[in-house]
């Protein structure tokens, strides 16, 4: 017995080490840091730590301001037309720290508390109106599980009017068997005697139209939403993909996968609404638009209002007169799937007129075409002009101030990764590059500076003056993941460009440089800012 006791001693010591070392490990779920570009600074949401880190380049040491979010933040967005950050949180269902799902508005200023709005459900998708007045919260089925939702009504929407000073309102919509895929807002305008914002919900095979504004009736009753079936015969599957609003007429045009038609929804006043009827009616008509149309644009005013529809399958563009339903098909040398309309001159005509640039980005055609829209219904193919590009295109970014479109070529098929399409001169100006470029960032101001990297530590830029490219380069100390050019000057009146280091910015590393004079001497870096005050967060 004595010997057994002796043998047990080292085992006890061993257990003392092993048991303590392995217990209590804190392993939260892996999550990405979300980067939000504000006007003059960057905000980083770390969902795993429920923290927002605001890095203001005007702060000399780049020390981040840290804001605690509500429980289990899901996503963060800049509120349109403001410098506020919107954070949608799922909340905590049980336990002593339980709290509801919330949408909070945060001004990223020290000491400024957020404005939380309690939500009735754990929504996990947010769509904003372009003026930043409205947000509609909904369920994205793919992310509902991560929000902690087991059973939910996917057709339950929650409408928030940030200007009302009131809580939002739940707005469930009828379903024809589908669920909201995306939500689009019409421009705010006066319709039928009242200023209002319409929201259109895309679902497979149908649209839902309702007013985002709170009901004006007394007592307040929500007008019934208008559900518009896109497949009256029920034999096809139609998925809405693009919408245009013509608020002068007023009308809505919808393009959908699975249909050769443009869905034309005209809105008319309902002079004698009964019960929960709306004060307007929607009437659907179909306009044939060639074969499998992919994109559309609107041009002209009044009776000259036309829709230009790109139909790559038939290598055509189709001009539609929505008033009469007439259509004119015009053959194009390439298969257009993307349209950029602009008003400007052309090499043959110095008068500014409505014109269009046609591209094929989906299958990567190496040609572009210009269309003079003014008389294209009569001029047909004579109104088109095609040019070859140096390689297959994959992405296009309009630069309205420069009357140009920046196009990026596919993969490594091209020696030049970028070209600038001059819309008025109708030239395609390649930008030489000796290697692959990282993600492209276009200066949001009118400077016309394009930023990128070599996927290593070289920050490159090129200034787009008329026909003259002025390239520059700054070698940073770390590999660059992406580049962000801030839209507005920071508090020190300097506008900055920010190079983000590392994949997913998990550690939190960046370098800031003045956007107008990016030099190494003026650069400053910080690494690890997403761990600011890390020890004070009460974990595990």
């Amino acid at each position: 017995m004595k010997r057994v006791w002796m043998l047990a001693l080292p085992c006890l010591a061993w257990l003392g080490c092993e048991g303590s070392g392995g217990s209590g490990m804190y392993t939260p779920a892996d999550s990405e840091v979300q980067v939000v570009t504000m006007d003059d600074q960057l905000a980083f949401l770390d969902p795993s730590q429920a923290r927002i880190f605001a890095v203001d380049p005007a702060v000399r040491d780049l020390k981040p301001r840290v804001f605690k979010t509500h429980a289990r933040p899901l996503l963060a967005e800049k509120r349109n037309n403001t410098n506020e950050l919107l954070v949608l949180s799922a909340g905590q269902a049980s336990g002593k720290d339980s709290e509801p799902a919330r949408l909070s508005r945060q001004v990223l200023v020290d000491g400024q508390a957020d404005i939380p709005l309690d939500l009735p459900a754990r929504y996990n998708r947010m769509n904003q109106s372009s003026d930043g007045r409205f947000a509609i919260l909904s369920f994205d089925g793919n992310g509902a599980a991560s929000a902690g939702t087991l059973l939910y009504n996917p057709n339950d929407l929650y409408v928030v009017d940030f200007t009302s000073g009131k809580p939002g309102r739940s707005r469930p919509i009828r379903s024809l068997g589908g669920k909201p895929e995306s939500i689009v807002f019409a421009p705010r305008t006066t319709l039928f005697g009242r200023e209002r914002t319409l929201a259109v919900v895309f679902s497979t095979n149908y649209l839902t139209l309702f007013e985002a504004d709170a009901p004006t009736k007394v007592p307040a009753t929500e007008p019934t939403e208008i559900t518009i079936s896109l497949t009256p015969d029920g034999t096809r599957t139609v998925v809405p993909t693009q919408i245009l609003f013509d608020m002068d007429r007023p009308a809505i045009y919808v393009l959908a996968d699975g249909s050769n038609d443009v869905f034309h929804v005209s809105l008319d006043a309902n002079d004698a609404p009964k019960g929960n009827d709306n004060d307007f009616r929607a009437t659907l008509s179909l306009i044939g638009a060639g074969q499998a149309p992919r994109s559309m644009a609107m041009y002209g005013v009044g009776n000259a209002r036309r829709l230009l529809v790109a139909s790559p399958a038939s290598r055509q563009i189709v001009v539609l007169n929505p008033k009469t339903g007439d259509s004119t098909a015009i053959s194009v040398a390439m298969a257009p799937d993307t349209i950029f309309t602009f008003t400007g001159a052309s090499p043959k005509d110095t008068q500014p007129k409505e014109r269009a640039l046609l591209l094929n980005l989906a299958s990567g055609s190496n040609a572009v075409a210009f269309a003079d829209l003014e008389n294209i219904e009569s001029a047909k193919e004579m109104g088109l002009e095609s040019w070859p590009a140096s390689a297959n295109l994959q992405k296009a970014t309009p630069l309205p101030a420069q009357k140009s479109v920046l196009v990026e070529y596919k993969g490594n098929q091209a020696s030049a990764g970028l070209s600038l399409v001059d819309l008025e001169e109708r030239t395609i100006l390649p930008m030489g590059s000796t290697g692959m470029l990282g993600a492209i960032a276009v200066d949001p101001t009118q400077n016309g500076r394009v930023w990128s990297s070599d996927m290593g530590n070289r920050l490159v830029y090129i200034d787009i003056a008329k026909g003259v490219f002025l390239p520059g380069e700054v070698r940073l100390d770390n590999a660059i993941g992406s580049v962000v050019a801030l839209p507005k000057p920071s508090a020190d009146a300097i506008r900055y460009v920010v190079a983000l280091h590392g994949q997913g910015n998990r550690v939190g590393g960046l370098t800031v440089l003045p956007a107008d004079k990016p030099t190494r001497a003026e650069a400053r870096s910080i690494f690890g800012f997403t761990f600011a005050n890390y020890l004070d967060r009460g974990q595990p």
Partner: protein
Amino acid sequence: MTMLRASTILLGGLFALLFLGTAHAQPPLYWPAGPAHDPAPTLAVPAAPREPEPPVLSWRPLRMSVSLESQTQWMLPDTTRALWGQKVQAGGGLSAQYEAMRLGPAQTLGVDLALVSQKTTRWTGTNVRQDTSDSRLALGASLAHSLWSWCAPYGRVAVGVGATKFSLGNQYADLSDTRWFVEGTLGAGIALRTPSLRLGKTADSFALTGILRVEGGYLVGNSQSFALKSASLAGEETPIPRSNVDVGTASHRAPYLRVSLGLGF
């Protein structure tokens, strides 16, 4: 930890051999006797009286010992838990003890010197690797009272100095900071020992004993404020200025449990 575990097993085996060996190590007190029918030889010259041999096993105290030890700490403050990434942290090291003074028939005053290290790794919520490690050198004094020759409860105070290294990083960045600390501990425990095994035949010959100490107590040290710094990866002569990131201040106090296993001589 693997090295500590291997050393513990080795020492445990040695410890067991030490004890098991005592059953077979009893030497005869006299020259081995021959068979019963074979009378002992008669010596012509009477031999000088032999010095009686001491017993091979004895409970006589030994003054020195060296030990392998594990030290477990319970990270009570939130900041300490965040620093170490877990609630309970274990480390290991070496220590040496010396019985400096006999204060009475059963009381002794001992001093000891210990070098202990601990290290842990975890992954943060954004999949960033967090490493925390420290090493400390502690000088202790203990007052023991032997209840029996094999069992002595004791009280112990110690002061130590050390450094904690805290680092975060992935393949894109490597951030770290090291902070010194001074700490004091107050604890009580019990020391258990085996009988000594004498390796020679004289009273002052070398002897070994196995000793187990189990001690619990509380340690307090200065708080540590960490500011993460990162090294430039590009090797530029004039690197772009980098700001350090204050990650906060970690308290340095914890209940602890020491378990040491050693050899006395």
